[in-house]
């Protein structure tokens, strides 16, 4: 059976019911918004079902929506080598809420989650070494949050009308 958006949606709703909060279709891409308790269950289901076989974690990142109550949105992108399709899972978290880590399933989740912690401040339970990875040690704040300023340095122009610089030949 070929993998289509409807197949995946039906099977997931059969297996997980209420934990699938929303399904989005945009430009041929399929996104599921799920609740955080069933993250590992859904991921393992998508990986182990022989017709889906989403065995590859392409990306793990987050987006910050400060106006919402659940400001963090952690995004997982899975890929299947058999059907050549992507599936996106999103989990919404409040500030300070933790989510379980995928380090036990994929090795690469280790550094992806460290980067999300560094840039957004989302903590992952069960991560062996959750420390800063890109910003310097001792950096305060989480740069990619919307309330962290860009820290733009205004160029200092001096208009030397009264004191022109010396011309050296």
């Amino acid at each position, binding site marked *: 059976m070929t993998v289509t958006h409807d197949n995946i949606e039906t099977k997931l709703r059969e297996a997980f019911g209420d934990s699938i909060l929303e399904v989005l279709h945009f430009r041929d891409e399929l996104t599921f918004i799920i609740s955080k308790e069933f993250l590992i269950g859904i991921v393992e289901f998508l990986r182990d079902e022989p017709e889906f076989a989403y065995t590859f974690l392409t990306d793990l990142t987050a987006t910050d929506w400060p106006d919402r109550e659940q400001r963090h949105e952690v995004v997982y992108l899975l890929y299947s080598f058999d059907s050549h399709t992507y599936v996106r899972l999103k989990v919404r978290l409040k500030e300070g809420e933790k989510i379980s880590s995928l380090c036990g399933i994929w090795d690469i989740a280790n550094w992806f989650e460290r980067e999300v912690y560094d840039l957004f401040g989302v903590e992952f339970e069960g991560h062996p070494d959750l420390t800063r990875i890109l*910003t*310097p040690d001792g*950096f305060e704040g989480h*740069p990619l949050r919307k309330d*962290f300023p*860009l*820290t*733009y*340095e205004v160029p200092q122009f001096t208009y030397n009308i009264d004191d022109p610089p010396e011309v050296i030949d």
Partner: protein
Amino acid sequence: MGLEEKIPDGILLTSVDKMVNWARKSSLWPLGFGLACCAIEMMSTFGPRFDLARFGMEVMRASPRQADLMIVSGRVSNKMAPVLKRLYDQMPSPKWVIAMGACASSGGVFNNYAILQGVDKILPVDVYVPGCPPRPEQLIDGIVKLQEKIKTESVKKPA
């Protein structure tokens, strides 16, 4: 003054400053320090077409203790800045610094929390070479200008 007629052939008279400066400028050894995109243009400048070895930079030394020119090529992030300063301190005098590219001169395209806005905030720079990245000919021009600058130095006032 008539002295040149009395001395045999093969002897030049000059000042200590000129001798020392000539020796220093003709054999600048750069530190192998490439950070980002400008490093690739620096490698091209050392490559076969824009050969930099003909200006005396025959070898690129990996250890700062054996180098006397640091070409800061690329963007300097806030995490890298203390490392840069430490490397500069490890170089023995006389030493010179060329800030290659827009990011090393003034922060370049990136004006944000992560990039040091100009390497001259932590090091004394002798020549700034603008460009993103500067062409190899521009870098060679910068090095020649540095050589002109070295000619004007004096052993009485150390660099």
